[in-house]
């Protein structure tokens, strides 16, 4: 379970946009529903590799806690990345993006990477929000944009991994203070010094890989 970095993500967006399904799809690829079985989960973790380094993603779904201001507040602050999800078949979920984004910007640390996700891209026939609209919104607010389908797994990997890449780049640029765990980034056990990072990360990654097969 050794990793170079641990990134904490949150998933935000209206209810029913498929947040927990995205999460499960990413952390547990096996659940690719061949038939109508929507299945999700509120928490998941998965290891990915970026730049030869093992990076663990911990994803927390904030669903069901909107009633409590203290909870949403804290969630935002503790995350390094956020997936802001809307449902391309429901216009109102797109319309609420501004509110979500305002909330996120207000409570999160300014470095948090936010990715805009238009989910349910498999339901092309019922589409209400054009892809261009999503792109325009993302451009306007400086977000990365992607349309995904938790059902077919299209772009799900990319969504999470691209976000991680962006966070990773920010770390390399020194934007994130990685020693401050309040940012939602944690350095792995073997990653104590910045200098020893590369060797340690790669070695541990290899070991972990061996352990699993």
């Amino acid at each position, binding site marked *: *379970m050794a990793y170079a970095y641990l990134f*904490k993500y949150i998933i935000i967006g209206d209810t029913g946009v498929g947040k*927990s399904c995205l999460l*499960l799809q990413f*952390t*547990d*690829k*096996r*659940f690719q529903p061949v*038939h109508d*079985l*929507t*299945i*999700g*989960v*509120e*928490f*998941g*973790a*998965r*290891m990915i590799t970026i730049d030869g380094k093992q990076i*663990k993603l*911990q994803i*927390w779904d904030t669903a*069901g*806690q909107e*009633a*409590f*201001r*203290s*909870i949403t*507040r*804290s*969630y935002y*602050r*503790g995350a390094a990345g956020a997936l802001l999800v809307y449902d391309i078949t429901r216009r109102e979920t797109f319309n609420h993006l501004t509110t979500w984004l305002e909330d996120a910007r207000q409570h999160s*640390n300014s470095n948090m990477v936010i990715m805009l996700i238009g989910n349910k891209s498999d339901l092309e026939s019922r589409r209400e929000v054009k892809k261009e609209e999503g792109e325009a919104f993302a451009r306007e607010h400086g977000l990365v944009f992607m349309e995904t389908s938790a059902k077919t797994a299209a772009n799900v990997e990319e969504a999470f991994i691209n976000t991680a890449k962006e966070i990773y780049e920010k770390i390399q640029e020194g934007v994130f*203070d990685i020693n*401050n*765990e*309040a940012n939602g980034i944690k350095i792995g056990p073997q990653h104590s010094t910045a200098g020893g990072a590369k060797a340690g990360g790669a070695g541990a990654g290899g070991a*972990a890989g061996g*352990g*699993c*097969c």
Partner: protein
Amino acid sequence: MFRSRSWFGGGWGRPKNPHSLERLKYLHNILCKNTTVSESNRGILVESLRCIAEILIWGDQNDSSVFDFFLEKNMLSYFLRIMRQKCGGSSYVCVQLLQTLNILFENIRNETSLYYLLSNNHVNSIIVHKFDVSDEEVMAYYISFLKTLSLKLNNHTIHFFYNEHTKDFPLYTEAIKFFNHPESMVRIAVRTLTLNVYRVQDASMLRFIRDRTAAPYFSNLVWFIGKHILELDACVRNDADHQSQQKLDDLVAEHLDHLHYINDILCLNIPDLNDVLTEHLLHKLLIPLYIYSLTSGSIKRPTSSPYNRDHIQSIEVITRNLEAILSGRSSDTPPRLKYPIQKMESEDDLKPSVSCVVSLFLLSQVFLIITHGPIVHALAWIIIQSDISIFDEGAMNILETYVSTAKSNVKLEFAKPQLSLEKALECSTCHDRDYTTPEYSGAKAFGYDTDHSSCDLDPELVSNSLPSTSHISETSSIAHDSTEDLVTQVQSIKSPVKENMPDSPLPDSGIDSTSSKTMSDLNNITDEEKQQLLVSLTNTEKSLTLENIIDKERRDIDNKPFLKTILDSLDCNEDDYKALFALCLLYALINNKGVSSELLDTLLKSELDDSEKVTKESRDENVGQEHQTKPKDHFNALLVAKLMAIAHLSCKPASKVRLVTCEITARLLKIAMEGSSGVPSARHLSAADNLRARAASLARNFYKCDDIFLDMFEDEYCEMCKRPLNVEWLCMDAAILLPPTKTPMSGIAFEKRLPSGEMERARRAIRTFFLIRELYLKLSGKQETQLPLANHAPFVQVGKTLDLNDSDLISCDITQKDGTWQHRFLAVDNIQIILVEPDKQKLGWGVAKLVGSLQDLEITGDKEDPRCLHLTIHKPRVGSTGVSPRTVLLRAKFKFDDHIRSMAAKQRLTKGRTKARQKKMQQIGRLLEVSGISAPAVAPRHRPLFARPSLSTVRRHSGIDGDETDRRIRRPSGHVLKDGVIVYRERTTMSRDSSVSRGSSGKVSREGSQEEIPLEDIRRNSSHPATPSTSRQQSTPSTSQLPKVSRTPSEETSFISGESRPKRKGIIETI
């Protein structure tokens, strides 16, 4: 990560259909065969667990027989068995197991399925299983599991988790053990879970929470908040150079999280819980740490303190007595009063406290976030009212209603809970001890308490010693006020608790109710005694200090130590560091809806009479000396005087008052001046008007013909309207906790720091003027009519058809960056540039395609092609859009028929721009009462240049051949064009970016056209300062920053009045 790879696609002889009963049977078989987890089979097990989850969800939605089989085979017990094995890689299996459960509980929709899953108590066994929580991954999945379960709680499901008979609620008690986990996400999950639990309004469960867990949980929570505060304080104290802003940010955010969490609990409105929480918060944190810290600063740093020795003592007495009242430790009172002070001073260092700045800041946050009446009212009461003479019946009443519902249970002190939460909970679940409030720690207690600390530690001993009644109640139930409730509870419930009677709350409750009564009796008696003692004390103090009235008033406030600290903090002579927090606190306190208005009258009720005021507000430093009137506990006048002092300081050029301080001061001034009556007195109005004049004079210093001033002025207004002060957001910003700084490189917003450089000083002056002016207008009930700066005429609507017969129209081709090309006609009037397209229906009419403001127009010549101009056209600022930043409508290259047309267009536009700006500058001049512009003269002078809907008037007034020439034609002059150009050019070179005009004019002159002569003149103008216009202006000291005052009349006359024209022309002709 293992899961996702290793078993993907691995096939072994299993039923084809992954979602079927057969498949589940097959998986069950696997579980049966692999009861022991080993290196070799853990992969199979994990895979099976995942499949099981999937099938169960499928079954839940499609085939109930799946669930039947799952229950029949009691498959959850396999889960447990696997979990309990300690072997290599068990965490790996555990994680999957927990995730399977998460998936199960998260996705099950069928109520019955859920009940089945929960029915045999296996879930509770899983909850209490000792997972390896040191493993980060296990911990995360475990806490998510608990959280997921908590989201399933409702009035029915609660009974699966909370066992009323065994008084067992593992889901809750296991979770709260992690309330202070180092991992933030875990802490959040715990908070979510607790809130989800509380909101299931199940009476029995809530009773359990209150009786068994509330005290230990809340006392620990409060203790850790306090520790956090001390850390924050240390961070502020040790950081003069803004080094640890990031850390400070986190600490402040963490404190806000705590407060929001507490507020979320309080907002659930569960009376019993709220009582306990309120009590702990007040007695263990807010009063001993936050409020006491207000005065502790004065003790620790006597040199900087305005208090003399006597006052220190009186503060200590107050603190002591306040504590006595709050904790109800009446029996201790007499001995304590004999030797309180000496003891205190020696122990003062031991008492944890934070700096005054931090405590003001934190209290502001409390009042901004928490609205629960009992807490905020008690706090406000203590801050505003507590003084030496408060110990009468009224005070007691307030405290009894608001504070001491169970008053003696929690000692007033910030101290570590004696038992860790986990221990306390263990005790509670073992039923071998009542763990209510184990917080007495002898070491940190005050002197007189230490004597009893041994008793405190031994509940049985205490409960037997009748004299110290408070101790009895402390060891017994937490909530005395609900003793009846408990009695009935005893009758209804009973059994298991009974065995543990000795110190459990229930059996004692009968005794308690009587003892609490005697206790309150005792309280009353001793308080009277106390009061007498105190009165005598105050009397002696008063007799010492009746020198003059001012001293008396100061004495008044001196008797209110906390309020005095706050009001004293408003002194901004050195800086506004402390003052900002004091203002925030006052603002938050006054605006908190949980604080009663009677209490606020102390601050807000003004003393009726204006005539009795001997002095007007003193304008300078000698504030606070303003007369303060009869009703001793009214401080409105003092408050207003202090606020006025800040406002006056902020109107000084080199003031150390930040804009944010000024803004919040203005807000408070409005509230304080309007008082409880809602109408400011004449005295206040004149003071506000005076203040406005000062602010105007401050801004006047920067009023100059700099083009940028107008833009700055409008921008600042727009900024102010767009982002009105939000005190709650302000108090989220840790940056203000550090001493005020100037440099923008600190990353601190302009409003929250001091201006750096001339430009920012101008901005500050302008903004201060807006704020003060707004205050004045609001107080006097006047409408704002002059801001935002109005345009003289309305803008033409895009799409409107205009009669352009006989108008000056210049044909042009417009090419944008992206290559789009259009042909339009350009028309210009006083304030706007209009691009029109011929109307197809009516000859001579045109449709407005684009309307932009002349004021913001940017004009640049083209270096290559003299026929071209580059224009950037901005959206007009009208009405509500007047307060939004300017937006670019069009940025394009305008190509005219020839260079003459291009010149004409350029001149017309440039002149229009200058004129439009001058008009606005005059408006500003009037606002700022710049001498010479005071008369509202423009209105009569301004002729409606643009009669609508027809644009026919444009022809007379717009541009070089319109406005200018038109009038000139009337004059007997042969040099119309030349003259016009010259007059116009000189203004251009002065007021506009010189490079622009230089570049273009040079270009054009090379063409050797008819225009050459005037352009030559311009060049001469710029090279020889002795040309008419500039020579005129040389009378003022600086040419670059000419005060508008001197220039504007000349502009006006050059345009409008006929007399100056010949004179000027004459001079020109001599060149």
